[in-house]
């Protein structure tokens, strides 16, 4: 049994007088200790909502969560608020995208790190301070003793993100969820943070769920990749397999629409037509059909089922034949 097993996770947002919105629609994945699983997709594909649902951070009212999230055998969705609070920060750590808005601006960094240690590991303040210093040291913050007394605004973006990672790691969680941890950072700082996270997974055997829109980050970091579109996983495979032979037209389209640093000069980009807003609901067919170059009549009539094809899960009626170049650009 895997450390984290997410089965059929569905999140429906309901608002009075509005159609219910299925933000996440039957997502399933497993994470083993020491493994990194990526959730990739564009804005609105449900990747962040998935992570919030796992952590129990969605509001009780208005969001209907179904399915199971079993962590080490217990279903996190069935726990009470109090039980969940005991686990969050201890067993489950989370790193958010924007470190400035997820740190408390009026509390020094040191207190924010020791808070977790005191709450979950029952350390006295003094001991916790020493541990906090070691943690900051471990995530590569220079002069940690001084930094402990400083406030978030006195740190640079990269240092803030490191402090956030230090907080998430304070209790050595078995599972770490990172929601776009490097999106707000510059590339050279991004490289530092990614190599830090890689090291942590290797040294501590933490299971990591990496949520990002950047396929480059995924290619270097994740073992298994889930590509999400409109709240469903459309393709799931190990990273080498996925990048070498993308089968879903969306994955294929994404890969051929990003400029690559090592591309030959003069190579044209092939964008996906339309925008994320052009979805149709999954109940009426394939959500990607209006933008898909491979769309058939069946695509707007029957919802494609998830099929297992030799270690690759695929949800498509008409997958891309391996080796085909990207579809010709269609005028929008």
């Amino acid at each position: 049994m895997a450390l984290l097993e997410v089965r059929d996770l569905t999140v429906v947002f309901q608002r009075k007088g509005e159609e219910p919105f299925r933000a996440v629609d039957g997502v399933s994945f497993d994470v083993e200790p020491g493994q990194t699983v990526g959730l990739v997709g564009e804005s609105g594909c449900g990747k962040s909502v998935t992570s919030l649902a796992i952590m129990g951070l969605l509001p009780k009212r208005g969001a209907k969560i179904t399915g199971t999230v079993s962590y080490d055998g217990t279903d996190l969705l069935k726990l009470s608020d109090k039980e969940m609070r005991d686990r969050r920060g201890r067993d489950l750590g989370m790193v958010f995208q924007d470190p400035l808005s997820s740190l408390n601006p009026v509390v020094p960094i040191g207190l924010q790190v020791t808070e977790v240690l005191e709450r979950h590991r029952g350390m006295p303040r003094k001991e916790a301070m020493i541990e906090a210093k070691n943690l900051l040291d471990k995530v590569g913050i220079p002069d940690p003793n001084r930094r402990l007394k400083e406030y978030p605004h006195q740190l640079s973006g990269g240092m803030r993100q490191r402090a956030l990672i230090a907080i998430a790691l304070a209790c050595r969680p078995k599972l770490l969820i990172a929601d776009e941890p490097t999106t707000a950072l510059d590339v050279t700082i991004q490289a530092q943070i990614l190599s830090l996270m890689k090291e942590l997974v290797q040294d501590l055997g933490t299971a990591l769920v990496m949520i990002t829109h950047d396929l480059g980050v995924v290619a270097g970091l994740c073992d298994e990749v889930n590509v999400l579109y409109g709240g469903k996983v459309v393709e799931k495979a190990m990273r080498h397999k996925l990048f070498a032979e993308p089968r879903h037209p969306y994955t294929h389209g994404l890969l051929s629409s990003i400029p690559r640093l090592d591309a030959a000069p003069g190579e044209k980009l092939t964008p996906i037509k339309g925008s994320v807003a052009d979805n149709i609901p999954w109940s009426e067919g394939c959500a990607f059909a209006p933008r898909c170059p491979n769309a058939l009549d069946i695509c707007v009539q029957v919802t494609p089922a998830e099929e297992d094809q030799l270690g690759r899960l695929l949800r498509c009626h008409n997958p891309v034949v391996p080796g085909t170049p990207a579809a010709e650009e269609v005028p929008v």
Partner: protein
Amino acid sequence: MSETLVSVQDMKVHFPIKRGVFFDKTVGYVYAVDGVDLEIKRGETYGLVGESGCGKSTLGRAMLRLNEPTAGKMVFDGHDFSTLKGEELRKMRRRIQMVFQDPLSSLDPRQSVESILVEGLRAHDLDEGKESTSKRLRELLSAVGLPTTALRKYPHEFSGGQRQRIGIARALALNPDLIVADEPVSALDVSVQAQVVNLLEELQEQFGLTYLVIAHDLAVVKHISDRVGVMYLGGLVEEATSEDLYAEPLHPYTRALLSAIPVPDPVVEDRRERILLAGDLPSPANPPNGCRFHTRCPWRQQTRCDTERPALRELKPGHKVACHWAEQIQSGEIQPHEVKPILIEEDDGISPDVPLVGPASVTEALNP
């Protein structure tokens, strides 16, 4: 093709840091752009890359004089743009247009697309009667790939990619020679980015435009540009054609930057070597002496690096670099070594050599 359209000479933009409540005392400067020379030829795309805070946007804005440069000049098509005033400046600005990063906040939410596009035409007396204007608007929209029904809609009714198209149409409306695009695709989803990049390329072919593209994403810049300038802390450190820059980066910073960009291919990612830079970008209010990069440079030498600021010099035809040791680094004579990150003050930018004078607060001013 080889005619120079824009030439920037020793451009400097320093922002004063003010202190005090009653008395605006200048206690230091942020050296956002500190001596940049560059030339853009007619019909080419010049890409300007660097991390946040390196001054690339400020440079772009200073060229249009949206920020007044502290020193230096810009010559645009033979006219000295930096000394123009009032009406002349306004007229000249027709020929240089800008596309901004965030399409929603750079379009007036209470103006319809038609009114957004017509506003520029009116301001420059290009509105010649209803018929010709409406023909022009239709041309513009079809050039950027929007339906004519868009004219009566408002910015919030469009998706991010379509909004950026409106921003581009607005820039095109005045038939400019140069378009300065500041992070034109970074606010867009990846699948839509390619649409806008391709659109910019098509428009360039169609209308013979010259672009200055400012972006932090080196992969996008490499794709779209003919020549690329890399900025670090207010100065250009390297300039080359985009192929040369990628094939043979000469400046240590460019090398690190290129190696830090993830490539969406696990085979490449597993193989390639990363040059991890230690620490953060130093504050532009208190830049390091000598070479700006020496505090983080893995190839730093004992001499010259911390005392003498390297000038941009041409190492090979068309390939300029600002590094004292570029040749030795390239030949492998100098090997990289470990760098300890130094503490960067997320500071208030007060340089230590300016004495603090005058009251610092109201209480101080009232009870001297």
